[in-house]
């Protein structure tokens, strides 16, 4: 893989363009806004109070035949309206629909598909790029197939997005009116970007085969870049509405929009949310395509297809993991910013009504980590020679389980009164220590390190270094030392943080994370150095995976989807009875905060609908493929062995 990357560096120009485009996408929004402020001004500017009245057939003024309104030339003369005080009667009830649940349903489904179709093109583009660099057609095919899977997702995401906006306008007119007052310009840009995205997605997908060679391929890559950039802009724009609703900015205390759209967009939580969603989308896209590959793996009888889909599943799995590993830290950042924005919101989130949600989240993430490790351990079975690592799996498993138990130990223990008296305190003398952040940080870093170790074991499953260079001889020892040093550091920082004030303690998570990151990076580099010259020991067989390992991929996808739904509920529900926190109150009859079980079953229902649609989505390409079956020239299968070198170490 690294070799691939190294080759990629030769395409420095292209890499730079990607980096620049991703980096400047917020700037692009900014520029677009400024452009908008001159041209779109007339479309959405609020009307001055007295002009509005004139329009409302103000009798005396019109009778006298005067144009009552003083010319609205001076922009300083109008002021947008403050946030309305909505009353129950301002919320229409349409056909007896529970508007809260209807919007929840539509929004969550929209987000599931949107996250999927935003995440997939990112790595599709990267894989296609690798394919161009390595000139290996299998990458291109795989990228194409991923794209094929996600195509149905695009229209579904758009459909649910449409449904969501219709529901919002119909069921929450007062709220939407206010949001349009603040974000009108932005919404217009959003709509335009949506056309751009549609253009790119169709040209990118349908032009795949036509633009396969030479300069056209470069154009195709450029289209993919356009797809990702427009997707990115779409995401950050819609994030701005979500973050505005949680932590409004660009308005005054009464909710009067101050006229600066950029200030309204770049709220306190915008960037943390952008990062969190960006990473999560990649992980999510990866986990769903992994499920697709598993699905194909399980439903095919052909040995070659199995090998192909095993490889595809593995690649998707690695992509999902790459997204998953930094995700907890992006989550910490978001939570920290929530605390900084409002202590009340922060404690509601972590200590109040939602406290148990985080135990639930911990259980889910733990389940995801356990499945991920299990998949990696099963992956060892592809190579006969990996048996030499088997002895390490059991201790590794024990460490993961212990770290995981620490990770989900609740801060507030549920105990019977008898247990309470046995313990003698509301805080358990041992488990009490696991309930606080210091232990959680230690546990999650340990979990990540262990998972990465599982991954590294798999990478060297069937190879050994040759030659007698320094790295070949001592590299592994250095890696072991690295792991030990990092883990010691993580644990001792974790213990030390019990003895220092809370303010300092929060800062300690940084060196802990850095320890993990250093291992992740250095150990990967050392790996390439060790295996610069390597030899295969024994055979490596793609497709040689037990059925149960494929189920873990499903477990991963399903858990991820459910978790995403749950956290969506959480992020949205901490606003409690506010549409826009502290500014625009939700006075509808449905302005309740749902209980956790209620939310859980709601999420379950949504996930079930989603899964039904996903199976449909998986089915579509198969249907299409069956028709072409006869014509199709088989590219998959054949000698896949070379591919191993590219993905599983060299």
């Amino acid at each position, binding site marked *: 893989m690294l070799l691939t990357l190294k080759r990629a560096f030769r395409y420095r120009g292209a890499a730079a363009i990607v980096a620049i485009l991703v980096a400047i996408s917020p700037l692009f929004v900014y520029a677009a806004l400024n452009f908008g402020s001159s041209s779109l001004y007339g479309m959405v500017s609020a009307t001055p109070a007295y002009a509005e009245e004139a329009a409302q057939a103000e009798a005396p003024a019109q009778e006298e035949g005067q144009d009552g309104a003083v010319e609205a030339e001076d922009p300083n003369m109008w002021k947008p309206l403050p946030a309305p005080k909505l009353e129950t009667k301002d919320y229409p009830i349409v056909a007896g629909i529970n508007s809260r649940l209807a919007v929840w349903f539509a929004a969550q489904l929209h987000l599931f598909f949107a996250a999927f179709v935003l995440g997939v093109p990112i790595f599709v583009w990267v894989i296609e790029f690798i394919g161009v660099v390595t000139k290996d057609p299998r990458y291109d095919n795989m990228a194409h197939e991923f794209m094929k899977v996600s195509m149905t997702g695009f229209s579904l995401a758009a459909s649910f997005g449409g449904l969501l906006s219709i529901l919002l306008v119909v069921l929450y007119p007062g709220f939407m009116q206010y949001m349009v007052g603040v974000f009108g310009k932005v919404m217009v840009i959003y709509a335009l970007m949506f056309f751009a995205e549609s253009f790119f997605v169709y040209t990118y997908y349908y032009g795949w085969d036509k633009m396969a060679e030479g300069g056209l391929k470069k154009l195709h890559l450029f289209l993919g870049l356009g797809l990702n950039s427009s997707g990115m802009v779409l995401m950050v724009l819609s994030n701005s509405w979500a973050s505005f609703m949680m932590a409004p900015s660009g308005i005054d205390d009464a909710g009067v929009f101050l006229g600066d759209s950029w200030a309204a967009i770049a709220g306190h939580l915008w960037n943390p949310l952008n990062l969190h969603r960006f990473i999560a989308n990649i992980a999510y896209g990866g986990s769903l395509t992994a499920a697709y590959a598993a699905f194909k793996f399980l439903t095919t009888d052909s040995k070659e297809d199995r090998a192909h889909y095993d490889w595809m599943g593995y690649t998707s799995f690695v992509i999902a993991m790459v997204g998953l590993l930094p995700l907890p830290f992006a989550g910490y950042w978001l939570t920290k910013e929530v605390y900084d924005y409002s202590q009340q919101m922060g404690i509601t989130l972590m200590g109040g009504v939602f406290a148990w949600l985080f135990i639930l989240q911990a259980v889910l993430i733990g389940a995801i980590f356990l499945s991920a490790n299990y998949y990696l351990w099963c992956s060892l079975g592809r190579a006969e020679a990996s048996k030499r690592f088997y002895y390490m799996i059991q201790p590794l498993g024990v460490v993961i389980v212990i770290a995981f138990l620490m990770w989900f130990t609740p801060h507030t223990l549920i105990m*019977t*009164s*008898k*247990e*309470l*008296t*046995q313990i003698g305190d509301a805080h358990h003398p041992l488990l009490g220590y696991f309930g606080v952040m210091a232990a959680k940080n230690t546990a999650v870093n340990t979990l990540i390190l262990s998972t990465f170790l599982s991954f590294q074991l798999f990478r060297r499953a069937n190879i050994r270094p040759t030659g007698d260079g320094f790295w070949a001889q001592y590299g592994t020892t250095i890696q072991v030392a690295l792991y030990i040093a990092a883990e010691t550091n993580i644990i001792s920082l974790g213990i030390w943080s019990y003895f220092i004030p809370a303010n300092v303690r929060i800062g300690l998570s940084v060196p802990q994370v850095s320890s993990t990151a250093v291992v992740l990076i250095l150990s990967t580099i050392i790996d390439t150095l060790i295996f610069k010259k390597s030899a295969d020991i024994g055979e490596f067989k793609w497709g040689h995976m037990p059925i149960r390992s494929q189920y873990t991929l499903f477990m991963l996808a399903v858990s991820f989807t459910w978790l995403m739904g749950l956290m969506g509920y959480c992020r949205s529900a901490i606003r409690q009875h506010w549409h826009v926190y502290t500014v625009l109150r939700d006075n509808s009859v449905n302005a309740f905060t749902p209980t956790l079980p209620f939310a859980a079953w709601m999420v379950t229902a949504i996930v079930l609908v989603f899964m039904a649609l996903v199976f449909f989505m998986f089915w579509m390409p198969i249907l299409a493929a069956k028709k072409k079956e006869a014509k199709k020239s088989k590219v998959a299968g054949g000698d896949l062995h070379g591919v191993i070198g590219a993905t599983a170490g060299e």
Partner: protein
Amino acid sequence: MTLTIRRSKFTSRIIFLAALFYVSVSGAAMAAPGNAENGSKIYLKKCWWCHGKEGEADGPAAKFLIPPPRDFSMGVYKYTTAKPGSEVTRDEDLFNMISNGMPGTAMPSWRQVLNEQERWDLVAFIKTLTDMFEDMKDPPEISYGSKVASSPESIEKGKKLFKETKCFECHGELGKGNTMKKLKEDSGHRVWPRNFHKPWTFRGGYTPEAIFARISNGIPNTPMPAHAADKTGNGKLSVEDRWHVVNFVMSLADDERRVKDGENVIKGQQVPQIPKDEKDPVWDSVDGTAFYLVPQIIQKDRFFIPSNDMVYVKVAFTADEIAFLVEVDDRTKSVPGDKIVESLSWDGLSPDGIAVQTPVIIPESSEKPYFGHGDKAHAVSMLYWNSGSVDKGSVSAILTATGTKTREPSDAKSAGFTTSASYDNGTWKVMMKRKMITPNKDKDTQFVVGKYIPVAFANWDGSNGERGSKHTMTTWYWLLLKPETGSEVVAYPAAVFLILVVGQFAFAAMGRRKEN
């Protein structure tokens, strides 16, 4: 040969153990000389709040405490194991009091907070707060003689001596501390004699040796005299006699009425006939539960110096009626108008009272009324009884409250509410009886079988100055009127068993078919 080797190994082990023992014992002895300067630092951080900066028992908390904190400037210590006749107490006693604390008082155990050396440092410092220790050597420990093991005969002898020595004048006929005298410490603070049925409240510890030392040395500064016989032995108790009394006292412990950790549900029991009064033998078959009483220190006027510490409750019910039996160990039968009790009481005499509180609406979720008199949104119903007065007899009422200031009577007659009470040798037994269901649904609790019903208690000891907001109470506990066990206890496990067995057989059959 092998034998000798083995033996020598054995001997060397013994020697080693002995040496170890010696080292540890002498280590403790060597730790004894504490550093008074260091002790003073600890004292000024942790101790002065009660005992005062100069050790004169005048710290900020002192005026709220009974028994009062020890006055170190006097150098007189209540719980000493020094040889009778010694003028000062032993260092070991001071050390033990700091280490173990004193049950039933505000003095906690400092073992968890201070290490052994620090505690010895404190001992050294405390001794500098008086001149009593200046020329005195650490006195020798009391001689325990040969301990008499507890036996029915010894207890019988002890009982006789208890009577002969007139211990009952203060400690009561049954040893419940229901005194016939008004007792003060030398400092003038009120003091109630110990209730021997609750030895876990003994300040100086609950071991035969501690009780022996107490009987021998008395409790200096209080009306409890020393009973160790001097050389002539007149009127006092010999070592052996004292052991008999110890055994008698130890035999009185009533663990049944002790608060059990984690037991916070009253086991309401269905009986064929509701008990007619508090002495009805039906009560013997009902399980009781004990709860701590704590003084009302939450609202004005706060009350800090309770005399009763525990309430013991039984509940029986039939289809129509429910009866509470509330027992409180109270050293005086406070009925205003009674001249004798008036002479015993502190801060005036008012009636003894007991209240049982339940929510009017039995909560379905965890949300309950505020435990002190309910709140605006959640009313509580109280069954109230007090001992009234000599002239007018006892008083009882059902009240409905939505806060301490909003309390109004409910109709006791239609609720079928009656009480009956008696006082016997240091214990009030009060039975309160009511209909399970009353016509006043919005004022009275409607008792239901099988539901967890929050319940709380309050008690007023009239001779301890307890009236109005000054009283002892409990927070919410539970009452469960135990339903008759239904068929589900059998049905569910049986169903699970069947499903599992049939399922497994089916699974096995499927597996075999596959194999074939």
